[in-house]
């Protein structure tokens, strides 16, 4: 990767912004599994592993799976945020490998939020 000039920075910002949200590109869904130390110690790696395996099995190419740090509500880890294009993101809590598979099937593929372990939809407030 080359050293950036200020112009380069602006370009990367524009490009990455588009992929960070689902405004452009092929993906129609993004699943973020939260992997802070709290999440990992609660089993987030197993959740992630199960999710990736299932996506590979189903051969899905338009679902982005990514990680991030802790989402804040450590007592309900493992957590994941599911965002479908055109909809507000939904935060899931108390996840286990079998539960994330349900989320994948029912929410991502069929469009129905899994109410049993969905906490809420929307984004946090920035000051």
């Amino acid at each position, binding site marked *: 990767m080359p050293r950036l000039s200020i112009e380069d920075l602006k370009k990367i910002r524009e490009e990455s912004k588009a992929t*960070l949200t*689902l405004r452009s590109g092929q993906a129609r869904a993004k699943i973020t599994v939260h992997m802070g*130390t709290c999440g990992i110690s609660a089993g987030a790696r197993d959740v992630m592993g199960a999710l990736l395996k299932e996506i590979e099995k189903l051969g899905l190419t338009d679902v982005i799976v990514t990680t991030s*740090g802790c989402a804040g509500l450590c007592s309900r880890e493992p957590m994941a945020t599911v965002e479908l294009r055109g*909809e*507000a993101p939904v*935060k899931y809590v108390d996840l286990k490998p079998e539960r994330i598979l349900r989320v994948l099937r029912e929410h991502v593929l069929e469009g129905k939020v899994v109410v049993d372990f969905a906490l809420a939809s*929307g984004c*946090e407030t920035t000051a």
Partner: protein
Amino acid sequence: MPYRTNVLVCAGTGCVSGNSFGVAQTLENEIRKLGLDQEVQVIRTGCQGFCAEGPIVIVQPDGIFYCGVQQKDAVYIAQEHLLKGRPVRKLLYSPPAEKKPIPALKDIPFFAKQRLVVLRNRGAIDPERIDDYIAVDGYAALVKALTEMTPEQILGEIKKSGLRGRGGGGFPTGIKWETCRKAAVSRAVDPVVVCNADEGDPGAFMDRSIIESDPHSVVEGMIIGARAIGAKEGFVYIRHEYPIARERLKKALDQAREYGLLGENIFGTMMNFDIEIVQGAGAFVCGESTALMASLEGKVGEPRAKYIHTVEYGYKNRPTNLNNVETWANVPLIINRGAEWFTSMGSGDVSENPWGGSSGTKVFSLVGKVKNTGLIEVPMGIPLREIVFDIGGGIPEGRSFKAVQTGGPSGGCLPESALDMPVDFDSLTEAGSMMGSGGMIVMDDQTCMVDVARYFIAFLTEESCGKCVPCREGLRSSLDALNRITQGTGKPDDIGLLREIGEVMQDCCLCALGTSAANPVLSTIQYFKDEYEAHINKGVCPAGVCTALIEYQIDPEKCDGCHACVHGCSTNAIIGNVKQVHFIDKEKCIKCGACVEACKRNGILKVPRSHAA
């Protein structure tokens, strides 16, 4: 006079990444230009739930929704809709009528009451991808600091923001930076910037989360600080017990270096600066600044007298600016959005004097006996009650609130009477505790406050470096007294003795570990003296915690003889035949609590020890 129109701009992280703040700023500017600022108010709100269409702007009471609003659109909205009363058709948005089956995040108190500044990117970006950080305006503040601001201007902005150290000391950051720069210039010596990521307080994990979720915010802050101070070298001293955070930070540094954001000629300017990660080795005392610098130099991590300040003579006798992780993470936003925005949050008034208030937000780790444990960020000055009951969700299992411990081993316990106190630097210190680094432990009626004091003193006794007499021996003698009390052999003089020990330690200890070590004891004596007296005079632990003062008893009303407890007991202390009421032999019981766990009927109680002895 009430406003005739409110313009609600969504400040959810989704819309913010679409530059909703820029939109809000432009709206405010236009409203002022059009002379409408007495009639129209711009409010930044929590997430409205339409994240995919953001940035969302809602005009009330008109009930008009705009979506996908850009800054140039904001000008148009102001002129057309707000001034002339004509809604802008091409931006209109009809929110879907059907309600979602699940609540909105803004309606959940845990999230609704938080205001993310430092944690703005949490959960939203991959911390191991620098491009993600750049996507959310990362390093834009650095560009501004390098190309549009002089070091003096950066110093001025930080000073004006009133940012105070988030590691516990609460010292005005701008003044610290300025003193460091002055010392470096007058002595013609290169200064050093250091990030204190040693976070030793038990129960505190703010710094860990910040580095795990958003390491670049810290890196960017340090580069900006280095420019302001004139430093070419920077260190992050991170504790050994944070391997994931360290890995992510290392990746962040490597990626920043590849992009030329660290190293020589940053962004093609004359600035050279790089950061090295140095690992701690399991000593709490190395979170103290002089001990940290000794450890950085490869010497034993022991503090020295701070009559000579480290900003003038610190690492290798060079002017050294040390700040906490959270402090550094605040810097890029202050540069990007301005000191005025920062002072619009918080309590008190920092316009004349940074010590006059607490501006900005604070990250707390909310743990203990509370329903929602986790990492929260709230504006300074929020009442303690809101944190515990709204954000925290209150005390679980129907128990009642007893105290909140803030500030870790250097802080104190605050009782119910303090719940309406605003949480900021000065109120907490006045009440006998301190903000500390942000650890907040909630305690219920089943917590013994004497045991809490004993826990912290035992922790500090382990961690004291042992260099000075008052800390080393004072902690030992405090621990002896507290052990006596919790074991039922406390003497009436012990309370006065603990107070005296605490006062002498506050006077005479060499470093802040020692001088603040007495806080847990002194604050619990101040607010919970009755518990101490119960232990000493009556041999009773009201919370039922101190094992020497309680005994386990089977409630004959509840016991149905299921024998489950007998299987759990490792000392054969439970006597009873199946289907008959069981009975615990006090002589054999070691009070491990296994029977309580095993009993399905909640039939085993902890009661005060009867004075048979």
